[in-house]
């Protein structure tokens, strides 16, 4: 549909006071034709049709050496449609240095979350742009390093005076280099100088916290450098860019606003038929679907590649498909061209139920809000259904041509990240493993079969210098399966393990899906008759698999080895540790004493009963043999 159609729909809905339709039409108008006129329309009618912003104000300061005002309506309209409460303040023309250096500058009283430095090659490397040819390559190199030094000083001051995230632009090259094709040969030509500048700029940003690069140079290249500038507007109003380039810039800035204001999707839920592969597996069969490049499969392989990229960024993948589960799983498990396998998916809904309902379940299963889910489906009817039923879910508006699906997903701003930690990279894998564990739990008949099917392996050891940090962290962070919730610092753990009577144990677990790392801690105090359990905790990742029994058995054996007869321990209830409530009674302890604040002291006579190591958990590198 074209803008004109949306415009008509919008006007009609507005006249009929049908706010929902008006909102949808206005959004579609701006999204299909994101120009200044439509931006103004969005801003004019935002209140009337009921666009709501949520959350705190996000303040952006723009320090600039050129006219940025035409960008503002585009930024504001984009923010309005995203429900963001954006406030932008712009510094004086070409006063960016004063804005930063003056301690009582408007900048610091404004208190922005994000600062955009809107500078160009014209400002930072003027001699390059003004065509004053440097006679030597040494001269250009000097030019670059002095420009960098100036910018670096400015950045240091800015960083020391406020906590805002700072966006630095890469510099662009002049559309036509001074030296013609000779520039391509020169080690310090226009292109080489700008490349050198940009490389150092990245290093400068990486060395600071909260300083990020906006790759304007790449943006101009993507758009078409020759169309990017408008000399007319530069001469008239000091606006360097052509009208159509403005939205590209606004969009790029909005990506940073999204990340920095936490408007992110954590899950991408995808359809299968005609989205992950070409054709319908239920009709075309495993051999009939299209997944080979050159044979109608390229578009779908590219979608899978994008999903793998997102997976690597820590975004969870989920399947939401109407299909026969056996047909679909056959493709996921066995089709030779598939890049994605069942292990990549954190949640799977393949059935004939309503997709909105399935998405609700996915959100529940992953413990995330519906607003962290993005939904990708080639079928407009399904997309519409989800839009209607679950307005919080981000439904990607896929284009007609499947070849453009991947691009659409790649450009979605809610998948942007400014940093990817090791934990992010591991997250997808961890969720996928957890889903498989749950699936097994569902198909196995008895709970013991489930435990056995996990192929669990546990290793217990005494705290050493390598494990102290993790042990302290677990005592500080573990809330659910934690008998006493005593919190210890690294120094305290370190001190405890040097005392004769005290034992500090770590527990590491593995199963057929992977290594969970150190997930348990026990701290005990031994004397001639009694072993007092001071702390026993397990990370919530491994609760409900009898690993705590293994931990207890280990402590008991060690205590018996030292001649102790009794095991004793407190249970101290908190708001969150109900999962550990029955630990002592389940393991044959008797309650000796209950205090008024709900705490209880338990005792086990080991001459009557020894805690048993579960026979479905194998023991590796055991402490006693160490």
């Amino acid at each position: 549909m074209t803008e004109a159609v949306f415009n008509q729909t919008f006007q009609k809905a507005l006249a009929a006071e049908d706010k929902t339709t008006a909102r949808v039409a206005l959004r579609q108008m701006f999204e299909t034709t994101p120009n200044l006129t439509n931006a103004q329309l969005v801003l004019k009618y935002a209140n009337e049709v009921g666009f709501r912003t949520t959350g705190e104000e996000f303040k952006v300061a723009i320090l600039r050496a050129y006219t940025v005002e035409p960008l503002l309506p585009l930024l504001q309209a984009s923010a309005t449609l995203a429900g963001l409460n954006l406030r932008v303040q712009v510094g004086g023309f070409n006063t960016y240095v004063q804005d930063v250096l003056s301690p009582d500058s408007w900048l610091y009283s404004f208190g922005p979350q994000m600062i955009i430095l809107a500078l160009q090659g014209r400002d930072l490397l003027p001699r390059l742009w003004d065509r004053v040819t440097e006679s030597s390559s040494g001269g250009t190199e000097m030019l670059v390093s002095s420009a960098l030094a100036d910018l670096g000083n400015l950045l240091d001051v800015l960083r020391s005076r406020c906590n805002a995230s700072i966006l630095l632009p890469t510099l662009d090259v002049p559309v036509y280099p001074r030296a013609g094709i000779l520039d391509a040969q020169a080690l310090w030509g226009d292109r080489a100088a700008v490349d050198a500048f940009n490389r150092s700029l990245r290093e400068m940003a990486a060395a600071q916290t909260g300083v990020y690069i906006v790759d304007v140079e790449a943006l101009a290249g993507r758009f078409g450098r020759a169309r990017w500038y408008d000399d007319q507007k530069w001469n008239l109003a000091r606006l360097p860019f052509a009208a159509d380039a403005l939205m590209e810039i606004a969009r790029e800035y909005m990506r940073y606003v999204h990340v920095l204001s936490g408007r992110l999707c954590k899950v991408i839920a995808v359809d299968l038929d005609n989205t992950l592969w070409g054709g319908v597996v239920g009709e075309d069969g495993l051999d009939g679907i299209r997944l080979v490049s050159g044979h109608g499969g390229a578009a779908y392989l590219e979608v899978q590649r994008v999903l793998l990229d997102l997976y690597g960024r820590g975004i969870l993948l989920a399947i939401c498909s109407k299909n026969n589960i056996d047909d679909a799983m056959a493709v996921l498990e066995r089709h030779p061209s598939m890049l994605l396998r069942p292990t990549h998916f954190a949640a799977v809904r393949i059935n004939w139920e309503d997709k909105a309902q399935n998405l609700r379940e996915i959100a529940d299963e992953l413990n995330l809000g519906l607003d962290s889910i993005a939904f990708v489906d080639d079928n407009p009817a399904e997309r519409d259904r989800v839009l209607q039923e679950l307005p919080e879910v981000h439904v990607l508006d896929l284009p007609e041509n499947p070849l453009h699906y991947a691009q659409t997903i790649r450009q979605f701003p809610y998948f942007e990240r400014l940093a990817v930690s090791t934990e992010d990279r591991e997250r997808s894998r961890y969720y996928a493993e957890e889903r498989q564990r749950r699936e097994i739990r569902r198909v196995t008949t008895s709970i013991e079969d489930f435990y056995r099917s996990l192929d669990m392996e546990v290793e217990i050891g005494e705290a050493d210098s390598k494990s102290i940090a993790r042990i302290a962290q677990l005592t500080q962070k573990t809330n659910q399966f934690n008998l006493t919730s005593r919190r210890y610092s690294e120094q305290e753990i370190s001190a405890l393990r040097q005392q004769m009577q005290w034992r500090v144990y770590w527990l590491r677990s593995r199963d057929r899906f992977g290594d969970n790392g150190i997930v348990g801690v026990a701290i005990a105090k031994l004397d001639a008759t009694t072993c007092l359990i001071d702390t026993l905790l397990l990370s919530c990742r491994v609760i409900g698999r009898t690993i705590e029994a293994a931990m207890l058995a280990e402590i008991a054996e060690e205590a018996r080895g030292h001649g102790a007869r009794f095991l004793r321990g407190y249970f101290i209830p908190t708001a969150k540790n109900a999962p550990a409530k029955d630990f002592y009674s389940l393991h044959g302890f008797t309650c000796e004493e209950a205090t008024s604040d709900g705490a209880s002291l338990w005792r086990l006579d080991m001459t009557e009963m020894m805690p048993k190591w579960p026979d479905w958990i194998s023991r590796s590198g055991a402490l006693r043999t160490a």
Partner: protein
Amino acid sequence: MSHKPVSERVLSTASGVFQCSQEAVKDAATLQDLSGWDSIAHLNFILALEQEFGFSFTEEEMELFTSIGSVIDVIHAKQLS
């Protein structure tokens, strides 16, 4: 591309950028008489027209942008050339 007459497209663009009714735009002797006019709004108006009509204006043409009538004339002339 829209098939509406040029004058209508110019009027609706102006009323959007200057945040006023189309009648107010028609009644104003010069663009500067509009309450929403300032140099930035003027620049935005030019940019919005360029997006609406898909061409860009020369400096000489932009100098003629004083009243809504002259804007319409410039665009008519440009479309004929």
